[in-house]
């Protein structure tokens, strides 16, 4: 690439590059959403099992909210997706300097 600034790039080429960047953003978002879903499902399962184990140890009949886990995972699939890109933008980090 020989262009040093955006002003050296013809408008049509700028638009083409913008579209490529948008496509890459869509790929990245899809990957982030997949990670979020997997992590949520994993944690829901872990927490449900842990809750049963601890309730058993306490010897008290605690009702574990089974529907909670399903609702949360479904909520991720529907409601969270709408706000997902906002959340992902907010949690980007700049790399730390080496110590």
């Amino acid at each position: 690439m020989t262009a040093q600034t955006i002003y050296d790039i013809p408008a049509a080429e700028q638009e083409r590059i913008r579209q490529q960047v948008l496509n890459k953003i869509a790929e990245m978002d899809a990957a982030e959403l997949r990670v979020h879903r997997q992590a949520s499902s994993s944690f829901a399962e872990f927490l449900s099992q842990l809750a049963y184990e601890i309730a058993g140890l306490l010897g008290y009949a605690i009702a574990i909210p089974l529907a909670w886990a399903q609702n949360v995972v479904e909520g991720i699939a529907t409601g969270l997706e709408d706000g997902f890109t906002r959340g992902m933008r907010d949690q980007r980090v700049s790399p730390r300097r080496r110590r």
Partner: protein
Amino acid sequence: MKVTVAKDMLAQFFDALRQGNADAPKAVLDTFEQRVRDRIAHEPTPRLALIGDTGVGKSSTLNALFNAGQDVGHVKATTSTEHGITVKIGPVDAEHGEIVVYDMPGLNESLATHDQHLATYARVLADVDVALWILEAPNRAIEKVQSFLRTELRQINPKLTDRVVFALNKVDLVYPGQTAWHPLACLPSEEQQRNIDARIKDVQRLVLEAIPSWHGTVIGYSAIQRYNLPQLFAVMLDAVGKKRQWVLAEHKALADYFELVDERFLPEDRRRARPTKDAPPNREDADLQKALLNMSEEDLQRLLDERRRRPTKI
């Protein structure tokens, strides 16, 4: 808003629990909640193996995924040498807590035999959540890896080899090379993308020939360009056992790809927010500003010249 899986879901879980157990004694529910939180806090930290020759970018990959900010070979690591293969194991302080890293040499750096590598790799794979085998995307000479995959790695328990992710770093250097990488959009050229895709297919084919039961995906990325990091992390998470996926995900802190893209190519909602007058100052930025203000003109010019040349640091 920081999206953390465990914290948000835990809050919702306890709300639902208390609503569903309104008649239970408060002390019981408090004890239950405390024990759950304690148990979560004591869940073992993620264990990650990084396999690769010196210079493939193990350290920069670790930093790019977890914002670790330090070299893999740091002083707190313990070194274990068996069969002539040195494995450095140590905690790494990352953005969201500690990660235990097993730093392992690639096949080109060791005089050990393939059998010796096999024994060490089998032991490490049994210990870790995921192993990232990093290869250099521009380097087509992977005969040793190919041979090892075909003859030795396939002997390891398939459940363990499923924990291995093969990742091609430095895709920005794939032919025609760095000049083909778009400096403003931080993307490969069309020719470069074709070559990257071809390399990925090559390596995927080699791995599947050696280990037909392998279910993974070969991923191309660039740690230095922060390119394809979410995709890399997603592939790593696929390789982790389901029970531990949330633990690794909690430590994710990807380097910001969009910082390297000219914001005029970005949609409005992706442009980094400018700091406001009321925003608390970022300490690192303040330190950097102070250092720049105290620099002589000569030193500043030298720094600018070095930035323009943009040497590739691995």
